[in-house]
């Protein structure tokens, strides 16, 4: 590439109209040839770009990183703090479950064995049912008696109210 072509390309470069290939051509031009005096500073710029592209991280970088990655190869490391928290919660749940189990056992032992199945003996089943129904019936009877008392109160209240209304009407 001659100087005039380079200058043309350079103009395109400043306007951001060059392709990557054309920019590479410019770089090669300024690296390989003595640029005209007027473009000395521009040549320095392209030489700078080229020098920068050759910068590399130092050699012991890769082994150091590899060592670190190898340490992490087993997957995510669970921190001891979170493990301790999980263990604490698990221990709590175990205590509650064990306590519930033993309490249930205690209740079972101490609960009086009054209620037994009667399905093997129809007569006894009948008696039990009768007893249960009688109990319900008695309860109903009691409730009715109490409700009647309430009725008396309601009646009294109504009468008082009527009387009050009548008096208000008179006044």
């Amino acid at each position: 590439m001659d100087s005039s072509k380079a200058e043309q390309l350079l103009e395109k470069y400043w306007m951001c109209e060059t392709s990557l290939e054309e920019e590479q051509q410019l770089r090669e031009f300024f690296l390989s040839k003595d640029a005209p005096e007027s473009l000395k500073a521009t040549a320095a710029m392209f030489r700078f770009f080229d020098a920068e592209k050759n910068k590399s991280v130092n050699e012991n970088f890769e082994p150091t990183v590899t060592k670190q990655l190898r340490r992490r190869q087993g997957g995510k490391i669970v921190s001891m703090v979170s493990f301790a928290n999980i263990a604490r919660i698990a221990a709590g749940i175990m205590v509650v479950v064990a306590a519930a189990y033993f309490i249930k056992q205690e209740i079972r032992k101490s609960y009086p064995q009054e209620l037994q199945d009667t399905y093997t003996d129809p007569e006894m089943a009948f008696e039990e049912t009768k007893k249960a129904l009688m109990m319900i019936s008695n309860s109903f009877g009691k409730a009715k008696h109490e409700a009647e008392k309430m009725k008396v109160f309601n009646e009294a209240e109504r009468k008082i109210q009527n009387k009050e209304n009548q008096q208000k009407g008179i006044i």
Partner: protein
Amino acid sequence: MNLETFQARVFPVKNKLFRFAFRLLGSSEEAKDVVQEVFIKIWNGREQLGEIQNIEAWSMRITKNLSLDRLRQQNRRPTDSLEKGLHIQNETLSPYENTEISESMKRIDELMASLPEKQRQVMHLRDIEGYSYSEIGEIMEIDMSQVKVNLFRARNAVREKLQKINNYGL
């Protein structure tokens, strides 16, 4: 993905990541830390790596984000990266770089360091790394028109300064 596949697919981009992080941070040690962090991040998420179309652009994007996070944490801008830049060139160096850096190239380094952050990023990705506009958009998470606008401004700023340098001589 096993370690060998990871090394084969991801490790080759290490220098590009390093250069990008260095451009943003202006410190080789910090840039190295960031690249290391990027690799560990990618390794931890290696199960999802199959879903990523362009691993290189994705790695560059993580590098950019982690570098900018660091700058934000430290509440600083790497405006004075020239000396640090020369320092890095003394320790991380390919044979080419072992040659003495000319005064003019130092000035270009200064010019680039003085550009606003986005313009500096775009110029680095295009003029040093040779990425296409769409790749730059993917890395920087901006659309293509924004890429072009930033590149145009960056090149124009550099051009103006180069003309001044040319007038006064290098």
